[in-house]
């Protein structure tokens, strides 16, 4: 049983998918099931030759202008890519050859243990302030912000900058984050409401100790159409040692493992 339908028949769903008869939500769920449901994958692959034949049957000469435009766009992207000395491609899963993450031990020079002890004390204090009975994200955010001026605090607050996507044309807000606690909150105002079944927002945390092509997934979230401030707890899937940038992209429902960053809405750079 896969999560996309309560009475799921893999053969029927695969046929509807290949024919193009599923809704966007159903199609996305079926595509997701291909990763972990062998029955769905087997049924899909049975019909793959039909899909290929149907697709090939509607072949038409494409307009030359699109080829020219793409060539120019790719050439420009290659230039930028070379300038940044990093590929634009974003492998999914566990990409081979990634540089190993530096361990924390490397950073423990003279006085490092004192810094660590101070951070630990701060983290304990932070946990007390953010203990579970403060369930309201707004109160938790305020508590975290209140810790910002304390000795040993690593709490940072950064305003969002718009990244060009139309969904964020009127957006503002900020990021509040503590590395020692691995906890934080993002606040949004004016970010376009999303239809969760069509697309969702996804937060990313860039870490100086990781390859910038593979930022840490900070969780997916929705913006309701009610207006006002929306505060979302940051839930990084991996530890973030030295955050350099927070970013919000628009992705398919449920989010992605690695974003193509085609729809980048907001960024907050750690200075």
């Amino acid at each position: 049983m896969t999560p996309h339908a309560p009475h799921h028949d893999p053969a029927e769903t695969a046929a509807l998918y290949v024919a193009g008869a599923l809704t966007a939500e159903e199609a996305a769920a079926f595509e997701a099931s291909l990763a972990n449901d062998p029955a769905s994958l087997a049924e899909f692959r049975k019909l793959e030759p039909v899909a290929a034949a149907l697709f090939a049957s509607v072949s038409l000469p494409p307009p030359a202008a699109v080829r020219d435009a793409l060539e120019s766009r790719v050439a420009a992207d290659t230039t930028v890519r070379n300038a940044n000395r990093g590929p634009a491609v974003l492998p999914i899963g566990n990409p081979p050859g990634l540089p190993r993450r530096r361990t924390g031990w490397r950073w423990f020079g003279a006085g490092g243990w004192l810094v660590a002890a101070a951070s630990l004390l701060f983290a304990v204090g932070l946990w007390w302030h953010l203990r579970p009975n403060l369930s309201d994200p707004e109160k938790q955010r305020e508590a975290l912000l209140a810790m910002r001026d304390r000795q040993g605090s690593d709490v940072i607050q950064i305003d969002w900058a718009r990244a060009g996507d139309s969904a964020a044309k009127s957006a503002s807000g900020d990021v509040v984050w503590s590395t020692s606690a691995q906890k934080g909150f993002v606040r949004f105002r004016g970010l376009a409401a999303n239809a969760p079944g069509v697309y969702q927002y996804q937060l990313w945390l860039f870490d100086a100790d990781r390859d910038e092509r593979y930022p840490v997934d900070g969780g997916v979230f929705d913006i309701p159409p009610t207006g006002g401030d929306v505060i979302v707890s940051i839930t990084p899937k991996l530890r973030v040692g030295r955050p350099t940038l927070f970013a919000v992209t628009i992705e398919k429902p449920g989010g992605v493992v690695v974003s193509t960053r085609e729809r980048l809405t907001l960024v907050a750079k750690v200075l």
Partner: protein
Amino acid sequence: MMSDQDLLHRIAAGDRSAFTAFYDRYAPRVWGLVSRLLRRREDAEDALQTTFWHVWRSAAQYDATRARPEVWLLLLARCRALDHLRRQKPAAPLPEVDFPSRYELGGGLEQSENAQQVREALGQLPEEQASAIRLAFFAGLTHEQIAERQATPLGTVKTRIRRGMQRLRELLGAANEVTAS
């Protein structure tokens, strides 16, 4: 000729000539699909460009265990076109569908053996199965919209599509075996 997978590997490494080769190989199919689903030419051009731009930026996401490259590409293109189609006029009445007749199908490539096979295979299906598949594949209608259009229970539409697709698989498989022999 370089395989599709090799081309995608090279595109993932930033090889522009591989990208151009991949585009030239499959742009006609993508264009044929998106221009049929999206009535406005500029929308179809946008879908064609964004589909291949996605290939350039995300070729490394291709997973050979899921689908062969051209199917991965065409499903991607269709997804984008359908998103656009269904987002444009969510409240509009269902479109009048001028899905290709058995004589029109594949008209862009009259000599295409593949188009001929598909045309013949669809022609051998019971009309209600062929009609449901045409409405989904060539007009972008969901199973619910097809049920509404045909005034048929949803379950019946799903069954027709499933049986039709399975029959197409048999017919096209047999046709390919004949061709191969």
